[in-house]
């Protein structure tokens, strides 16, 4: 207790409660529901039980569906929100059929003949200053769920489904990987007292070191039963690693405990392929069991499946033409529901086209893991092993990897090597786009401009490359999503520092180095291509923030508002040329920068990108559905989508950030993505759309009041016209001394306020006292960093709208002008898009 439910590893059903305690809790739950008066619909109640004496406490009650309702629905097959909706319109539970069995009513309580483990996924690497201790404030950004026949099996499956680089419950190679300062027992003991994302791995280190279950329990307060289960895993590993040989019985025993092939390979210094081959030769294969709400008491035809090493398999191959769609795993920063949208759209399209759509995913928060979204659902980790078993069982026409983000993409080459047909764009083309050298060749052939760039496999190489390219440079590891460990370096010292702190570089893990184009416009272009070579632009999005801000964190606008037709045309042509050169069948995303009249190609992704849902909604055409169809051989001409749709209205996407949850984190945007969601505003002008997007992103702009401006020297000239507009709209402009002098000299009355270190009252006090309605602040550089960091923190804490870039400040002034000059009207998306012809 004390760790937010969303941040806890949770297990269903309850493992260590007797029926008496279980029923007492059920009685209390029913009593609360009756007393509060929940007439119909979902409800969530949290209890705590004192493990020493069974004392039961109610923590909270939510008379609505909650985050755990989604989890409970997936864990049991009982769709709480769906049933709740029917109850809300007047049905009774016994009038609603159990959607899984079809033959029994919904007025029952599901029983499980399996164990479900949910494991949160964190993103502290993106918020290095944030406190990693887990508390009552939720800090995880996603979760994986795994189903097995035993706790041990589900626990290990859940951990490998996390996709955090571990193949199950394995310790890191360095103490630091498990958030330990060193390898000492003292460090372990200290760490175990604090819940952190890595504590589960620290527990393994502790048990491996021989700490007793009693001691680990004492330190961590994790129930001894769970520690006992973990001890069994540790013991089994040790026995397996030291055996002379591994016979079928030993291998099967380990598989029944949930060990992945990869884990077993590591234990005996083999390769994953060795283990798989021997396992297949010995016919040790998973069986697939159904989640049926009733523990097998009634027949069920709903193929909601999970793997287990047991005897009998259910949900046999249907014999229909089928397609396997790989989902995107747990949500994380840079890979979230956008890809779930794409997968779900593809599933819907394939089902319409008469294919059996088979979904594989491990994320309980998604629509793709609803048992009725696909024809067949495998709730499984997205590892090579788990996917290969499914593909071998289902023998589909092929596998779609390009809609689920980096998760399935990373499996592409291994799947292909195992003889699996990849639908759509070929693995080789995907590789070209990721491989700097191969891509450079294509870019040269097509006559495309790229920022000067290089690849390095060592620090020395990187420094050399940067010297050649010219600072500032943008560095990042290859094969990452969301700008993980992406950084702008202005000099060799900071580049050196990058390798010391942010990323490692090696032969296997090269880094990419690009010239950073300061003050460039950035543009995303999404397009779709078919096997006949037709390419249609889905949308051109202009980033509102300048180059240097990750595309996922930048607001963007479709259609673009400040780019000339010539440049737009150039980007369209280049996108088409790239799609053709890479023989894309499906989706492609290209990122461009425009500086001094030159269009540069920054990045090509021959797959669904994060922007697909936004573009699809902006233009009214579900691009992911179309992508699935072209992957199955239809042409865009057949489908009737041959022309780019440029909407006669404006759509603005704004990113949503979790900064308020991570105290101590600086909200200044950079090349590493940190947003966890996005919103869209739609209207007939840029200003109005931007205003709506800000409002939706909980950054609602003021119509009047006082605006505080404090910007670095570089931005002073840019901010002047913006300040003037605010002044003309009647805002009182307040600025720190330097900015204030600069503005006054240009005829803008701007009163001066102290910086934080200059005395009081200062600009921080203004924010805290509620005397500022909008903050425009750009980082002032190293010396004053603390000063303006404090300002941004205060703005977040006191819910004062803020912008940290000049372009966003300018957009905000447009938005406020628009808000002041007109009354808001309501128009549905369907009304906006009434004239758009959607392909059938």
């Amino acid at each position: 207790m004390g760790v937010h439910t969303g941040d806890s590893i949770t297990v269903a059903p309850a493992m260590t409660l007797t029926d008496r305690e279980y029923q007492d809790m059920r009685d209390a739950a029913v009593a609360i529901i009756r007393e509060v008066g929940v007439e119909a619909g979902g409800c969530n109640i949290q209890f705590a039980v004192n493990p020493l004496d069974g004392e039961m406490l109610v923590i909270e009650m939510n008379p609505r569906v909650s985050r755990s309702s989604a989890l409970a629905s997936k864990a049991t097959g009982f769709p709480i929100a769906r049933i709740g909706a029917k109850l809300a319109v007047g049905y009774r539970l016994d009038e609603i059929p159990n959607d899984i069995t079809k033959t029994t009513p919904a007025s029952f309580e599901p029983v499980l003949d399996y164990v479900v483990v949910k494991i949160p996924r964190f993103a502290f690497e993106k918020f290095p200053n944030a406190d990693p201790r887990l508390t009552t404030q939720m800090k995880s950004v996603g979760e994986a769920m795994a189903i097995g026949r035993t706790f041990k099996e589900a626990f290990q499956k859940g951990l490998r489904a996390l996709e955090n680089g571990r193949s199950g419950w394995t310790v890191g190679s360095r103490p630091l990987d498990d958030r330990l300062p060193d390898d000492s027992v003292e460090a372990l003991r200290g760490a175990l007292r604090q819940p952190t994302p890595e504590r589960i791995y620290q527990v393994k280190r502790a048990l491996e070191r021989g700490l007793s279950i009693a001691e680990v329990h004492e330190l961590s307060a994790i129930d001894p039963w769970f520690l006992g289960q973990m001890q069994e895993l540790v013991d089994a590993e040790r026995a397996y690693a030291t055996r002379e040989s591994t016979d079928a019985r030993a291998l099967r025993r380990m598989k029944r405990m949930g060990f992945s092939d990869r884990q077993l390979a590591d234990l005996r210094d083999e390769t994953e392929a060795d283990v798989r081959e021997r396992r297949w030769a010995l016919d040790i294969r998973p069986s697939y069991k159904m989640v049926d709400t009733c523990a097998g008491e009634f027949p069920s035809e709903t193929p909601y499946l999970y793997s287990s090493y047991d005897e009998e398999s259910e949900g046999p191959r249907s014999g229909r033409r089928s397609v396997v769609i790989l989902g995107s795993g747990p949500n994380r920063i840079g890979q979230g529901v956008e890809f779930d949208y794409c997968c779900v759209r593809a599933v819907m399209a394939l089902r319409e086209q008469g294919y059996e759509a088979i979904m594989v995913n491990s994320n309980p928060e998604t629509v793709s893991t609803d048992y009725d979204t696909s024809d067949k659902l495998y709730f499984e980790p997205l590892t090579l092993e788990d996917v290969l078993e499914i593909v071998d069982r289902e023998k589909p026409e092929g596998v779609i990897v390009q809609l689920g983000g980096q998760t399935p993409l990373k499996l592409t080459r291994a799947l292909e090597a195992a003889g699996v047909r990849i639908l759509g764009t070929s693995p080789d083309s995907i590789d070209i786009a990721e491989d700097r050298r191969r891509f450079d060749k294509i870019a040269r052939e097509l006559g495309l401009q790229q920022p000067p760039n290089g690849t390095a496999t060592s620090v020395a190489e990187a420094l050399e490359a940067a010297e050649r390219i010219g600072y500032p440079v943008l560095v990042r590891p290859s094969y990452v999503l969301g700008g993980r460990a992406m950084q702008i370096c202005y000099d060799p010292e900071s580049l050196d520092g990058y390798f010391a702190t942010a990323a490692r570089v090696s032969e296997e893990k090269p880094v990419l180095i690009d010239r950073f184009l300061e003050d460039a416009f950035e543009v995303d272009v999404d397009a779709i291509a078919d096997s006949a070579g037709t390419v249609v632009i889905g949308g051109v999005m202009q980033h509102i923030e300048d180059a240097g801000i990750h595309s996922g964190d930048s607001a963007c606008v479709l259609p673009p508002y400040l780019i000339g037709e010539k440049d737009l045309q150039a980007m369209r042509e280049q996108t088409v040329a790239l799609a053709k050169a890479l023989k894309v069948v499906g989706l492609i995303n290209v990122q461009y920068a425009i500086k001094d009249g030159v269009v540069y190609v920054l990045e090509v992704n021959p797959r669904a990108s994060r922007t697909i849902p936004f573009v699809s909604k902006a233009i009214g055409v579900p691009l992911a559905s179309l992508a699935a169809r072209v992957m199955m051989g239809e042409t865009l001409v057949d489908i009737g989508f041959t022309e780019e749709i440029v909407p006669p209205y404006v759509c603005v996407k704004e990113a949503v950030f979790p900064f308020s949850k991570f105290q101590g984190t600086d909200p200044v945007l950079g090349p590493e993505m940190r947003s966890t969601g996005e919103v869209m505003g739609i209207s007939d002008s840029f200003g109005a759309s931007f205003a709506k997007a800000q409002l939706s992103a909980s950054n609602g702009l003021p119509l009047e009041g006082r605006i505080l401006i404090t910007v670095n020297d570089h931005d002073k000239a840019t901010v002047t016209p913006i300040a003037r507009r605010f002044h003309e709209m009647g805002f009182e402009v307040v600025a720190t001394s330097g900015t204030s002098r600069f503005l006054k000299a240009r005829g803008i009355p701007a009163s001066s306020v102290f910086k934080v270190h200059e005395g009081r009252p200062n600009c921080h006090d203004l924010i805290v006292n509620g005397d500022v309605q909008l903050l425009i602040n750009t980082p002032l550089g190293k010396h004053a960093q603390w000063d303006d960091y404090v300002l941004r923190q205060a703005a977040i804490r006191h819910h004062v709208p803020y912008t940290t870039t000049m372009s966003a400040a300018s957009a905000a002034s447009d938005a406020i002008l628009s808000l002041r000059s007109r009354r808001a009207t309501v128009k549905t998306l369907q009304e906006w898009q009434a004239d758009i012809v959607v392909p059938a």
Partner: protein
Amino acid sequence: MTDRELHPGFLLLEDGTLFRGVFRTPPVITVAEVVFTTNMSGYQEVFTDPSYRGQIVVMTAPMIGNYGVNASDPESARPQVAGVIVRELSNSYSNWRAEGDLGSWLSDAQIPILEEVDTRRLTKHLRTIGSMTGVMGLGDEPSAEAIAALEACPSMEGLDLATRVTTGERYTWGNPDAPYHIVAYDYGIKRNILRLFDENGCRITVLPAETSAEDALALAPDGVFLSNGPGDPAAVTYAPATVRAIAAQGVPIFGICLGHQILGLTFGGETIKMSYGHRGGNQPVKEVGSGRVLITSQNHGFAVKGDEDGVPGAPELEVTHVNLNDGTVEGLKHRDLPIFSVQYHPEAAPGPHDARPLFEEFLATVRTRKG
């Protein structure tokens, strides 16, 4: 636990289907009807419920033994089941009430536990074909001895087990000064029934199943209770006459499970063997009058024949409850006399407490009559 300590074992069903698993303690050959229960918690209550007497119980919940065993949860003096089949028996346990581990507790009572079985496959098989007899034993393949034992085993149909599990001697339970006196016929009574009567202000005299109506009435009961129990209700041939004689005196009667079936038989109904019965804690039961649904605890393989409209041959009985999964009779009420019964277990243990108010309902009848 290392491989060495485990002994390969099997379950062979009468239709020839074989299931493999392991034993920790080598068992004697055990033959019995194989049934499954979907209760997720309450294994100790299940194993001590006399209604499971003579049955090998398959737990569909895959992890059993996690919270150990204690002295206060049993529903009778000893484990009653013939054998237990689980997917995984926990090697350790954790609960503040735990006093020991389940594995040892069962082996001390000489009850074999077959572990590592694909219990879902077994459950689906029993659901599809129906409950049947099976034999458990040691080894990878069934021995000739085991097969012979299986062939010699009588079917549950026609088996009077109530007479075997009933108390040898009458005994009393509860506060001797309690205002109401309930006389309970023990066909395999669960302790929680006695606890609930006690909590509701009753003292209880528990009688052996074959006690005559005369002897029972001589105790001047304020109400008579017919308990749950194992086996075929139709085989308890002496019970209906006894119950009829008590009913004739206008004494309020309440029956649960086997007691409910006996009431059905007493007033002219028939009982049938169900394909695989109802065993678990999530059975939806509708009160015919109100339409209200209760989530109930159940454990029965026989049922009173009938439906929402009534029990054929028993015009005096009204059907008060039906099962929403399959429409079977779940509750009966006499149209004129203060007599009612339910097929499910309002005393729960294990299972939900939705139906507990039935005890109060019975006592209201008792109070009214007593004045």
